[in-house]
């Protein structure tokens, strides 16, 4: 197998004395879709946020597309590595975080122009292409407060894609949405998966995980307790915590 896009080795994270991540090892291969499930508070989001250093890891190493960044680094050199890692990852947040003072198009153009120094014409072209990919080109001149939550999230996905990252990180992208708006966002994500986008998705949407994931990883109390294909995990879980988690989802669905 070729080198992974994301490799997490021995990742630990402490908040004060609380050990939130207890030594995590994880690989995500190119073009792979990995769904991360687990109860709230199990450390899924923290792990995702450690990958692009929104949370500074306490121990271990993050490797993205061959770029190795050990935990606990300090100084200019470390900052530079972190910056490069962020350019290789695209992040989609639970609550969208679109920039309210910019139009939809400007939201998507902003980082290519400001961070990469791309000229505006080229950035506009890329922005429009990515807006079209998520079906939001028709709203490009609107401002974020004029569109629905589902539409906001689709724009946020386009904004991340416009930086042409090696891997997309999704942090519960549908958890803040009204139920009737979840579908459109999941559709966009399915489309990305089909195009071969490498994705690491923290989610509670079991239907999505079953349909799209190549691999599901179950997290519990800061550890990865089980992983496998959707069939293995969802239909024949080995761990009793996984079974309990799935039962919880099923009863919530009823």
């Amino acid at each position: 197998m070729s080198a992974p896009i994301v490799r997490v080795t021995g990742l630990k994270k402490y908040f004060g004395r609380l050990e939130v991540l207890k030594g995590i090892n994880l690989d995500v291969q190119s073009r792979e879709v990995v769904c991360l499930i687990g109860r709230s508070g199990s450390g899924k989001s923290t792990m995702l946020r450690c990958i692009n250093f929104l949370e500074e890891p306490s121990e271990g190493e993050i490797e993205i597309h061959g770029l190795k960044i050990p935990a606990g680094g300090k100084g200019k050199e470390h900052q530079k590595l972190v910056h490069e890692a962020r350019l290789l990852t695209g992040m989609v947040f639970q609550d969208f975080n679109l920039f309210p003072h910019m139009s939809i198009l400007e939201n998507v153009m902003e980082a290519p122009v400001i961070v990469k120094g791309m000229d505006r014409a080229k950035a506009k072209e890329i922005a429009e292409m990515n807006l079209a990919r998520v079906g939001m080109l028709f709203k490009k001149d609107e401002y974020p407060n004029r569109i629905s939550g589902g539409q906001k999230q689709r724009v946020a996905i386009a904004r991340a894609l416009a930086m042409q990252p090696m891997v997309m990180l999704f942090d519960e992208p549908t958890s803040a949405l009204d139920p009737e708006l979840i579908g459109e966002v999941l559709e966009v994500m399915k489309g990305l998966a089909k195009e071969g986008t490498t994705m690491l998705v923290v989610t509670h949407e079991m239907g999505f995980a079953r349909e799209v994931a190549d691999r599901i990883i179950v997290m519990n109390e800061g550890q990865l307790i089980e992983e496998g294909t959707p069939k293995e995990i969802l239909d024949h879980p080995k761990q009793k915590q996984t079974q309990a988690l799935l039962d919880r989802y099923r009863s919530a669905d009823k």
Partner: protein
Amino acid sequence: MEIFRKKQADGSLSHVELLYQLQQRKQMQFRANVAISWIFLLLILYVLFSGDSLGLGAIQLDTDFIKENFTFIAQGVGDTLYISFLSIVLAIILALLAALGRLSTFPPFYALSTFYVSLMRGTPLYLQIFFFFLALPQIIPWWAQVPGLWAGVLALGMNYGAYMSETFRAGISSVGKGQREAAIALGMTNGQMMRRIVLPQALRFAIPPMGNDFIAMTKDSAMVAATGFVHELMWRATRVGRTNLRNLEALIMAAFFYWIMTLILTAIQSRIEARLGKGDR
């Protein structure tokens, strides 16, 4: 709005449309009543100061003096606005720096910011104007001839900057953590995040209170007259008032100009606010 326009099949007004019209009529009536009351209050003020001409006035004013000196005092409006404008520009720059200092984790910068704000808020503006007037020529010897206006601008700018830094700080803090994280995740540096994402949103938040500060400043600029070297409204009023022993007339005229200026600035301010409100909040 379409719903209000839709006529019913028989041409009569729909229930919704009737309600809408009723509300509009009520609002117009309210505005008309307010306007009438304003005119009445202005009339009282006029009668109070009308002097001999109506035979009712409580306060006797020398109308000839007013006519003679009207242009002389009016010429101060320009300087008053000029001082206020320079001062507010200085205040905005200082307020921004002080707000950033206040949010900084670098101790000397934080200390400088809190020290400046504390000092400027802890002493009277009137005193500060004199202080700069007296101190500047000693600090910068070749400036001995200049200071009147600049002492005033420095004092006003630094004083208002200290107060406005709180507004800016609130504006910067009002921009959520999610906005910063989104910017950082996209690869922006702290500086880029501040310039492109946080400050534009903070400024939008700070513009209405800044308008208030500017309006307040046009009147506080009257204190600059105290140094005796800036020929703005207040200086001109006191000067002609004193030489002709018509202090009350002169001050009323200055008050008139200040009020008119404030009315105009308030109108401009509400227009700007209306435009901001339409935006994207």
